């Protein structure tokens, strides 16, 4: 300690003694008192109509009876609109991209370009990109504007208000509901948003559990599975409704896991009580159209899509190489998948799915395309023109059952966060320990949950 610093500290201690105990309370009181006086002089209030309307709305959307059901209905509606709206544009994009793949590959062949260059570029890198864009762009372009409207309207703090009692009883911070909502867009963004939580203990809980809300990279997987396996067993009129209900159910399971893991953490390694906090419920504001479009399409959709494309291109290349290097008559991809098969089977999945998850560690967006590319192999460049083709490929050719679909949804919901998110956890906590726990805790839970579901399912069926 430097000499002048010691002198200053000592003098401060002496002066503190001489001032008595409540001088600072006095100071705070005088600030509050003065603020009240100045505000009273500066404000003239007449009777208001609008504040009354806000209050009436709040009485319904934050009521103990209607609050949670209204939230669930809104979320379900958003999913339903996303699923129904994205179907057609997704198919159109896929048709267009894959048509071009054939044309370009054909042209390369005519020009005498070696088959492996054509394959690597068009059936590897390009195909990976095409999949990601056609599967992800339409749902995001529909989901994000709706989410941003709710955000601009002022609904998010009401969500936090409604869920507060649940988080409190789990020993976590009520603002975790806000960071959870941000996680819908991107878990890395959700983890940065946890800065609003004061207590380090509760902030860590929010960071470690943010992964249990499916981010936008994982939504397409959930939507696809819900459409192909659940929606398809209903009549066409109800198919999209059933699919939306399934996605909603998966999200609710995620919330249950968030609360359960928060509860467990706050009673073990992050012991403590939930702290009190104030949260303003801002007035409802009319969302600005241009701002919504900018935020949802440029900031969110294109940002997420760009990131997905950056990882999809190299992943497509890796898959193509793995699928085209043969050792003993079998491709490397197939070797790895066979090796992983026993583990995959034990948790109700298969080796190809696990291989896809390993390749997709940089970004969750590419799980489905990876999986499909390995299933399709290289010899048969079957185009998947419709969901029916997809069903045929998965069920008839690769032995998927309803259990596979259910467990894949659960695995997708619970498994380790993507590399970007893990890196964000490290940056925010500056601790390798918490980053490791943030990666392994969800992964372990995913394995255990899927294993238990598989065991029970097989015992019953």
């Amino acid at each position, binding site marked *: 300690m430097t000499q002048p610093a010691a002198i200053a500290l000592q003098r*401060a201690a002496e002066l503190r003694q001489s001032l008595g105990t409540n001088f600072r309370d006095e100071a705070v009181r005088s600030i*509050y008192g*003065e603020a009240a006086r100045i505000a009273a*002089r500066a404000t003239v*209030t007449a009777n*208001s109509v609008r504040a009354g309307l806000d209050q009436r709305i709040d009485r319904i959307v934050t009521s103990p009876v209607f609050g949670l059901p209204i939230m669930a209905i809104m979320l379900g509606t958003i999913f339903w609109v996303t699923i129904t709206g994205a179907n057609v544009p997704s198919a159109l994009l896929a048709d267009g991209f894959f048509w071009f793949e054939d044309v370009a590959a054909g042209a390369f062949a005519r020009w005498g370009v070696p088959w492996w260059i054509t394959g690597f570029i068009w059936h590897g890198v390009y195909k990976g990109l095409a999949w990601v864009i056609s599967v992800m762009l339409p749902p995001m372009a529909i989901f994000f504007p709706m989410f941003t409207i709710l955000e601009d309207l002022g609904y998010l703090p009401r969500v936090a208000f409604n869920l507060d009692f649940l988080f409190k009883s789990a020993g976590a911070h009520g603002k975790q509901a806000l960071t959870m909502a941000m996680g819908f867009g991107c878990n890395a963004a959700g983890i940065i948003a946890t800065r609003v939580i004061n207590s380090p203990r509760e902030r860590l809980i929010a960071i470690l559990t943010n992964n249990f809300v499916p981010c936008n990279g994982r939504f397409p997987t959930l939507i696809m599975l819900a459409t192909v396996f659940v929606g398809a067993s209903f009549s066409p009129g109800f198919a999209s409704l059933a699919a939306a209900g399934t996605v909603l159910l998966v999200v609710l399971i995620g919330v249950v896991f968030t609360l359960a893991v928060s509860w467990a953490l706050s009673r073990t390694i992050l012991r403590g009580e939930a702290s009190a906090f104030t949260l303003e419920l801002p007035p409802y504001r009319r969302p600005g159209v241009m701002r919504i479009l900018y935020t949802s399409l440029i900031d969110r959709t294109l940002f997420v899509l760009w990131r997905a494309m950056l990882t999809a291109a190299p992943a497509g290349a890796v898959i193509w190489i793995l699928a085209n290097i043969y050792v003993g008559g079998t491709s490397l991809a197939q070797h790895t998948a066979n090796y992983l098969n026993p583990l995959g089977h034990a948790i109700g999945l298969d080796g190809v799915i696990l291989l896809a998850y390993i390749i997709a560690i940089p970004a969750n967006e590419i799980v489905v395309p990876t999986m499909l590319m390995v299933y399709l192999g290289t010899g048969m460049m079957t185009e998947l023109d419709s969901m029916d083709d997809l069903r045929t490929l998965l069920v008839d050719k690769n032995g998927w059952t309803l259990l596979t679909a259910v467990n894949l949804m659960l695995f997708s919901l619970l498994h380790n966060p993507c590399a970007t998110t893990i890196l964000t956890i490290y940056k925010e906590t500056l601790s390798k320990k918490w980053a490791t726990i943030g990666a392994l805790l969800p992964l372990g839970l995913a394995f255990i949950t899927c294993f238990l579901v598989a065991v029970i399912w097989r015992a019953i069926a």
Partner: protein
Amino acid sequence: MSHNCETCASFSELARMGVNLGKFDRVVALAGNPNTGKSTLFNALTGLKQHTGNWPGKTVTRAEGGFEFNKVRYKLVDLPGTYSLLSASSDEEIARDFLLFGTPDVTVVVIDATAIERNLNLVLQVLEITSRVVVAVNLMDEAARKGMEIDLRSLSRDLGVPAVGIVARTGEGLQGLLTTVDGVASGEIKTQPLRVAGTPEFQRAVAELVPLIQEAAPGVPNARWIAIRLLDGDAEVESALTSGRLADLVSGQQKNAERFSQKIALQGAQ
């Protein structure tokens, strides 16, 4: 509804410069309670697209952008919202550290016209540490809709610093705000900030500590605030002073102030 103000006459002197800060003459910080419209004002002045949303806590990092007004180049720093300078969550720390140690030329405290009393607590705390303050009373349209009338002259007189009414979403009042910021920065507008905290003994104790602190941490801005925190027995400030972390913090904030930040291009994507 909002009109495009880039073409209207009153805005002829404002040039939005985005992240192209280049050289700047003055640094202006945007402080205020959460959800009072700091980021909206930031976007209106710089032409940037910081993420805005109707909920407290949207901004968790510091964003920087530039604008030119009356041939003077400004760097504008958008800070996370905070209710108090004493708070401890890490987004609020970012705001507090910059206000205390980043030495902005002018601090604009953005307050919510519909909740003046609560917002004034922060204003009074900011006045404790700096006199170059402009109070921007935002959301004047909402206050009017709620049937509230705000007496800006009474507010200015009581606080001893200028108070300007604005509607950041539509750009209303920004001309007046910038003229006032210019006046305070150049010294044309003299401020006499209201300092309410404490008894005469308390003020004497603060005055006695200030030179001791300046000796312990040479060049530290806001020795006054540190003195108050030491009298309060703030362990964090005590250890910052003894370990030399305070000096690092000051130089860190000032280094940041000199760096032409491109960070926003990344942060905007959150």
